[in-house]
């Protein structure tokens, strides 16, 4: 039994448009183990896993399942072979109930219709077997992320999964939810489900993995067990060099208030109150961090501040002036800089050139426009200067941003926003999906901006980011700001607790 690989990959290679995503990857998964696959963003982890679950085909190499060589041409075959994958972006139909989501694709049927009664029984049986449950009739889009993830796990179990792949499952979870997930994972492993756990978080790897495979630039760097290594050496293996964690060790100078929200309430697109009666202020030379699990009103809050969403009640005050709602340009003209959450959707016009993206917010002003006409020369000069100053690596100002890497795209946004002499920066998830080097860069730029005297509001679901950068920390939970902790009073555990349960505990 022991040592027999349920899954073995031999010499897997895959490239996209000439870019190598995986080259000659060998990988072994033992029965009932939790195997961590560790690597940076873009190291090729997801590509590798997509080949195992039939979404992609390898260019070269072989896949063995239970010792037999298999070709996994489509997800259906993968499911039949007992491979289940839980993607980073959940593959859940938002308007469906949990039950409908679970049975989708393997529905039990009577002659004409779906046999919901039978499905219900099967799910109840699974609950008993694995010792955790879900509400089959809840509409999934209303469920918290942690529960949605559970629905995903049920989907896999319903298909009698033998090899479960979890792609960055903790990225959207709070520490407490992560603990819950780990408990579930251990239970599954005991019931001899083999688990591949993709992550870039070292702490979690050390905590849960039975063995660790480290990937870098599409290739395997090493296979270890947690006993024989530590976080530092894993980090070195993963990144290929030493990293110096940036942290904010300077205490904030209490400057003038640059931004203030008073009694702010904002409705979500679906009509309910997403942000309720929120008040806070940001001072010159200060970074205020808002921590919270995704979907607790951060998006609505930041959109309202940026002038992209209607305000139900309350005021936004920027450098002493009350700002009108739904007027992004006025906000920018009064000193707002904004790094939006979704840089591809909001921050950039993808088919446009770097130069054009860099004047996206100032195109109508001198020197980029005179009367009704644009000044292309000014635009190109501006772009050359910014590319130099912000170290944007690209062919030239006229290159389309579509072809840039994620890090360089973020640099384009930063070059645009930071060059406007703004006094207040709204940064929503500024490092999501970036590699370590780019994260470092973004953090350094933010600190520089802060040191120049700007106030910064940092909204992030990465607790580490908040803890290392923020001068003072707020937690958002169900649309309310529930704590105003100084940096000293905050630690992971208490913040995590507040992120999941609000103030319940303290009451």
């Amino acid at each position, binding site marked *: 039994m022991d040592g027999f690989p349920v899954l073995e990959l031999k010499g897997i290679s895959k490239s996209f448009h000439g870019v190598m995503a995986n080259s000659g990857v060998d990988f072994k998964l033992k029965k009932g183990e939790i195997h961590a696959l560790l690597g940076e963003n873009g190291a090729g982890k997801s590509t590798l896993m*997509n080949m195992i*679950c039939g*979404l*992609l085909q390898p260019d070269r190499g072989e896949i063995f399942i239970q010792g037999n060589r298999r070709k996994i041409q*489509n*997800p*259906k075959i*993968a*499911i039949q072979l007992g491979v289940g*994958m839980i*993607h980073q972006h*959940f*593959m*859940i*139909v*938002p*308007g*469906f*109930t949990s*039950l*409908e*989501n679970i*049975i*989708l*694709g*393997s*529905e039990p*049927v009577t002659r*004409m*219709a*779906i046999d*919901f009664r039978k499905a219900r029984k099967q799910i109840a049986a699974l609950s008993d077997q694995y010792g955790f449950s879900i509400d*089959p*009739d809840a*509409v999934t*889009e209303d469920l918290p992320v942690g529960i949605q993830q559970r629905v995903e796990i049920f*989907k896999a179990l319903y298909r009698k999964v033998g090899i479960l792949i979890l792609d960055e499952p903790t990225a959207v979870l709070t520490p407490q939810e992560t603990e819950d997930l780990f408990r579930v994972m251990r239970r599954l492993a005991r019931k001899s489900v083999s688990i591949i756990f993709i992550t870039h978080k070292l702490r979690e790897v050390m905590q849960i993995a039975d063995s660790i495979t480290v990937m870098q630039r599409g290739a395997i760097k090493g296979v270890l067990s947690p006993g024989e290594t530590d976080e530092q050496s894993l980090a070195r293996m993963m990144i290929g060099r030493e990293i110096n964690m940036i942290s904010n060790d300077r205490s904030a100078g209490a400057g003038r208030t640059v931004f203030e929200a008073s009694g702010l309430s904002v409705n979500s697109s679906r009509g309910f109150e997403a942000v309720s009666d929120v008040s806070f202020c940001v001072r010159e030379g200060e970074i205020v961090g808002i921590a919270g699990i995704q979907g607790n009103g951060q998006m609505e809050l930041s959109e309202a501040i940026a002038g992209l969403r209607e305000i139900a009640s309350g005021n936004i005050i920027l450098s002493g002036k009350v700002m009108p709602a739904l007027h992004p340009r006025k906000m920018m003209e009064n000193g707002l800089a904004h790094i939006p959450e979704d840089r591809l959707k909001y921050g950039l016009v993808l088919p446009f050139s770097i130069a054009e993206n860099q004047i996206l917010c100032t195109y109508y002003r001198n020197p980029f426009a005179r009367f009704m006409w644009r000044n292309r020369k000014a635009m190109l000069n501006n772009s050359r200067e910014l590319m130099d100053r912000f170290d944007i690596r690209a062919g030239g100002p006229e290159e389309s941003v579509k072809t840039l890497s994620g890090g360089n795209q973020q640099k384009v946004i930063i070059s645009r926003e930071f060059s406007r002499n703004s006094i207040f920066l709204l940064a929503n998830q500024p490092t999501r999906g970036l590699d370590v080097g780019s994260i470092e860069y973004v953090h350094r730029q933010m600190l520089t901006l802060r040191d120049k005297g700007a106030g910064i509001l940092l909204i992030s679901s990465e607790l580490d980011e908040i803890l290392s950068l923020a001068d003072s920390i707020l937690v958002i939970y169900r649309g309310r700001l529930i704590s105003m902790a100084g940096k000293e009073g905050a630690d992971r555990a208490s913040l995590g607790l507040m992120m999941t349960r609000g103030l319940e505990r303290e009451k």
Partner: protein
Amino acid sequence: MMAVSRLRPGARGEMLCVFLWISVTACIVCSYWISPVVTVAVLSSALRQSTPLVLGAMCGLLSERSGVMNIGIEGQMLMAAFWGFLMHVWTGSLMMGVISGLAAGAFAGFLFAWMSVSMKMDQIIAGTIINILAVGLTGFFYPTGMSSAGKLKIYSVPLLSEIPLAGPVLFRMSPIVFLTICIVFLLHYCLFYSRWGLRTRATGEHPKAAATMGISVVKLRYGNIMIGGCIAGLAGAFLSLESVGVFERGMTNGRGFIALAVMIFGKWTPIGAWGAALLFGLSMSVQTQLQFDRVLSLPHQFTGMLPYLITIIVLAIFIRRNRPPASLGVSCERE
């Protein structure tokens, strides 16, 4: 207890519909009390006028529920009307005519599916190509001076057609109108209770999720669009073989687009779309009757404009309130 998800017809806003229908029914009963002959005539005409719209809406619904925006319904109808009529004249058989109409619609659907699903062309452009192609092909191959050998016959269900009011309206009608009602209910049941329906709705909302669960998005979309093509073909056959009796150039007159508004008004559900189309048909036939009785006297151009105006108004008001399938218009990439 059945699980009811948000993508099924729910109770929200249905009160208004119920109220609307109760008042319409009350009006019908009143008018039947005053003048039975006219009422029956108006209602039958409403049912007939709504038929191509219902069928068109079903065609649109099938492809939109699986995530493909279909504005080529007009073209599919036109090709079917043409080909159905042609085959009818050549073979002399109405049955052959209808069947060829269905085949033509399905073929047009296949072409649309190939462009929008396989070639990943923009769906609006793919639909536009179908529409232009239909105008061109039917015009090019149209043999002038062809006359038909008759229309589809009215069929009366014995006994049932003797019921006052409901009898002559519902049980004395042509086969395609009757078939349409069957299709509506069958489709409604299948869409919300069958395995195919669940998969279709999942594909329309989140094609990637469906794909990871082993559902072939491409096959499903092809299937749905082609079945939809058949249904649009039936609408075409209705126009050339039943309603008018001959093929005329551009005879669909925008019905394929009105059908889309009907589908949206009906919140992408078959029964909802049916109700919307009936309201539409009713307003048309009442207006015709009023015109006929000289209660109203508008130039015919204004009455001709009416359906288009209503369509615009319906679209403008209801497009935001009714929630379309989430992945509409986005061609599914498997990375």
